[in-house]
């Protein structure tokens, strides 16, 4: 029987996500590289006490809606709806804006393990690669070293960092096929490729599902072995094409202003 990792709906894709699960969430900061529809589906499912692993804790859908994002949800949807018990995260807050994570954290309603971004990526990779732990210099002499084993290697002090394991990884990619092979677009790889395969189950939300032979073997970024389920966004994105100079698209150059507008809107609400 032909291998087929494609599932028909986001709800089906997250049907086995459970209370207390640890979930890796791909992306970086801007919403385009985030598995927005899977986040919505997990929120809909109503599971709680989640531990999440992500680079950021989200800006909230309002900001991305202002920029016309068709899929505007980021990590904030799980945080504002109190689904998250603990966030393992590199950049939980915004310099420009008090997000819901910060509000909950100040109120003592969410736990936080803050991890330097490179160490976060490497700890995720360690889980994927069968590495039991590794030593880095990042954080020596700072709060990051607290409670961790240290070791002198070649005359320099290193910190022992351990793998981050998870039950689920939800990621976003540009195109995927029935084998789970994935390609990304531009700077939207972010944490998605490294999370693929780092959890027991990896679920990929893609702009477009393509035929098995369509992806060039030389250009596949995530081999299908790391992916258990592929699900397509409801409105197949029109082909975004290659990134070209001066393409006429909505810009994020006014990022700060947009955030200010959204904040103002919230205040009025």
């Amino acid at each position: 029987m032909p291998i087929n990792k494609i599932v028909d709906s986001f709800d089906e894709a997250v049907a086995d996500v459970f209370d207390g699960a640890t979930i890796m969430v791909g992306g970086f900061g801007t919403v385009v590289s985030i598995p927005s529809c899977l986040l919505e589906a997990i929120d809909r499912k109503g599971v709680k006490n989640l531990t999440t692993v992500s680079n950021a804790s989200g800006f909230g859908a309002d900001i991305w809606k202002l920029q016309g994002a068709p899929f505007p949800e980021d990590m904030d949807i799980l945080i504002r709806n109190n689904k998250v018990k603990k966030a393992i995260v590199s950049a939980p807050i915004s310099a420009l804006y008090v997000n819901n994570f910060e509000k909950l954290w100040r109120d003592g309603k969410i736990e936080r393990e803050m991890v330097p971004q490179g160490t976060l990526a490497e700890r995720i990779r360690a889980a994927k690669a069968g590495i039991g732990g590794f030593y880095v210099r990042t954080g020596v002499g700072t709060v990051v070293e607290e409670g961790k084993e240290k070791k002198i290697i070649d005359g320099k002090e290193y910190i022992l960092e351990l793998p981050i394991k998870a039950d689920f990884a939800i990621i976003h990619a540009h195109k995927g096929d029935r084998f789970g092979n994935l390609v990304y677009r531009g700077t939207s790889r972010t944490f998605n490729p490294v999370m693929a395969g780092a959890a027991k189950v990896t679920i990929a939300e893609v702009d477009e599902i393509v035929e098995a032979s369509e992806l060039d073997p030389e250009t596949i970024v995530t081999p299908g072995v790391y992916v258990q389920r592929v699900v397509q966004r409801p409105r197949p994105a029109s082909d975004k094409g290659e990134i070209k100079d001066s393409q006429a698209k909505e810009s994020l150059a006014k990022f700060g202003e947009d955030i200010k507008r959204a904040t103002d809107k919230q205040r009025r609400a």
Partner: protein
Amino acid sequence: MREELIKKEKLDRQVMALRVAREFQDGEMVNLGQGIPTLCSNFVPSGREVIFQSENGVMGYGEITLPGEGDLDLVNASGQTVHPAPGMCLFDNCESFVMIRGGHLDITVMGAYQVSEKGDLCNYMVPARQVGTIGGAMDLAFGAKKVIIVMNHITKEGDYRIKKKPEYEITAPHCVSLLVTDIAVIEVTDKGMVLKEYAPGWTPAEVQELTEPTLIIAPDCCEMTLA
């Protein structure tokens, strides 16, 4: 005098970025962090080829696009859309930090809340909010060959940001090489902080007034030229 200096006109963000960009030498590989640093890709000195890396997974990008002209799938660390540059390549965050942690980048430019006389960097704990956000800063501070900090010289309230000792939790000890502020360019050396340049309209004594550690005045200390 101090009160006047706090209010005295200083360089704006664009000019600070321009001044930082002059540090970039031909062929150098430069990471630009969130905030003012990402503006630097707009100001590469003419005739030089510099390669910009962004922690979110791109190397070889160019200027920030005009509003409405970018592709949302090509952004810098601040989330601003950028132009591709020749030789651009794309990768994920894990590979990005192989470059950063592995010491493959010549320069990283970051913002900061405080820098100490010894080059200790404080830029992850947002002081007003007492909540931290490490992001890529710590790996960058430990991994890059040279750390350049660009920041306002003093706080909005007029307090020192260049301190004898760091007040906040540090991002990394003894890592800053060069400080570019809205009134000065200061080198961090084993002997102390060396004032190299002061903003047009400012004097070394005025810069010292807004700086807690005693500055060593470089023999060739001069007014910043920004043309």
